[in-house]
């Protein structure tokens, strides 16, 4: 009966003499372990804008908006930090060697206005040279062309966009004409225009 009391007393004295266990958080910043899963952050240079992360996100925290303005076409990738659950699915699905979007150690995500709880990056968009619809991000087409190597010469969309990114050929002007001619088959086209141009010009 006495022994347990002594044991607990020792523990109490130890607790009295030792420093508080809790951290002095606001005064001393909290540094999480490097393994900590924090807010995902886009890497604008590595991201190719393929939307794989948007597909796999279980909480729809990733969205995109296409701005098909012919003078400056761009795709805006949006990550809503308020709905994100930091599961890391986006990083696991990233096609750019898992470098396009990466979980960081960032944990201090408090905000006053929900509208500000998002981070965006802009990617240059490739438009169809006939109809002006977005095809994919320029970096994405380049990524595919590099991935499949010489096979990319089977698709004008791929090899032209690749050659353009290398600076070998000049930028073509986007034609407003909807009449598909034979020469249209050798252009950067969206899937619909490619089908139309192939179907309408092959029988002639």
């Amino acid at each position, binding site marked *: *009966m006495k022994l*347990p009391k002594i*044991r*607990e007393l020792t*523990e109490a004295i130890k607790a009295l003499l030792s420093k508080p*266990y809790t951290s002095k958080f606001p005064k001393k910043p909290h540094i*999480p*372990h490097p*393994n*900590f*899963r924090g807010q995902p952050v886009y890497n604008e240079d590595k991201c190719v804008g393929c939307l794989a992360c948007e597909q*796999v996100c*279980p*909480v729809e925290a990733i969205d995109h908006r296409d701005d098909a303005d012919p003078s400056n076409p761009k795709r805006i990738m949006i990550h809503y930090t308020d709905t994100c*659950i*930091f*599961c*890391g*699915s986006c990083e*696991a699905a990233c096609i750019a060697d898992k470098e396009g979007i990466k*979980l960081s150690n960032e944990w201090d995500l408090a905000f006053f206005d929900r509208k500000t709880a998002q981070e965006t990056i802009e990617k240059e968009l490739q438009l169809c040279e006939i109809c002006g619809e977005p095809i994919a991000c320029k970096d994405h087409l380049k990524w595919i062309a590099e991935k499949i190597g010489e096979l990319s010469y089977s698709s004008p969309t791929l090899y032209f966009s690749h050659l353009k990114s290398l600076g070998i050929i000049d930028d073509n002007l986007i034609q407003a004409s909807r009449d598909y001619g034979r020469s249209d088959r050798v252009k950067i086209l969206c899937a619909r225009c490619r089908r139309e141009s192939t179907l309408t010009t092959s029988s002639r």
Partner: protein
Amino acid sequence: MAKSIIPIGPYHPLQEEPEFFTLTVDGETVVDIDVSIGYNHRGIEKLSEMKTFDQSTFVIERICGICSTSHPFAYTRAVEDIIPVEVPDRAKYIRTIIGEGERIHSHLLWLGLAGHFLGYNTVYMWVWKLREEILDAMEILSGNRNNYAMFKPGGVRRDINSEDIPPALRKIESIVPTLNKLKKAIIDDPVLHARLKGIGILTKEEALDYCALGPTSRASGVAKDVRKDAPYGAYDQVQWDMIVTENGDVFDKVVVRVLEMFESVKIMKQCLENLPPGEIDLNIKNIPPGEGIGAHEAPRGETFHYVRSDGTNRPARHKVRAPTFMNLPTFKATVIGETISDATIILASIDPCYCCTERMSVMNCRGKKIYSGEDLVRLSQDKTKLIQKKMGLK
């Protein structure tokens, strides 16, 4: 003799969860108890059917904050049962490590709360301080203190790096001396003996009749544990003992949980030291039509999941049975006959988790009229009129 009814809920003031107990008391003694749940229905099963098999794990993880690995563990086993496949050894070991880490922190959380319920706030503070070490170890291993996001059908999402193992092991082993002290302090504390011994006894027969699970049944002498009965993960490849005690009172439930933590530390240590090399994921692409079941011994008892697939990438049906669903009815056997002051700790002794349990609630209307929304509005308006009439208002 006149009997009184004491309502506890719909929001439990102590356990801070939505449930409703109706205690019928005769003086100080509880003579009847009725439990009603259904205040926290979130439609998780339906939500899981709207996500792909891979995405569903994150919804399932959020059924319960404490059992955030038990539910994905059972779910992934159910999905793997449809195909069926055997996950790689390394994934099995990682799953076991995460599952056991969760068991330790869940038991510590319960122990602290039990101390708090009894007025032993020292135990509460001491134990929750200890729990921090485990949560830190889990942060090193999985990247988060809770909601580990480690599980996926066919394996695990994140590998455990070999350089992370020694610091995590140090953290896990550092709790053992304190846990030993705690064990002694609890097992021979005279006040705890007076409060917990012989209180809320669930006999072996009753435990079997009510199909009690987990520590609730093991404290009553029913040696039932999915990890031993139908081994999965790495549980058959490591050395550990099932803790079974005989008395079935609240004190034994405490003892079972405290001793189980030592076993969990043992399992985690063996798994981390003998982590086999190899793949961690099978990269399952398609789930064929069929149905599968999965079970996992959660800290509170056996969690059971049923998943049916129709060949698409989403589950056609997903059924969850949480351990509290089976342990809840044992209150009929344990609370009746005890005093109200003891009812608090008995109601907490099964480590209830109502958020896990709330899958679907059906109200039995016993042949009476079922009111529609319009009827209810009319009833309410009639009552207002009645009151106005009584008060002499127009």
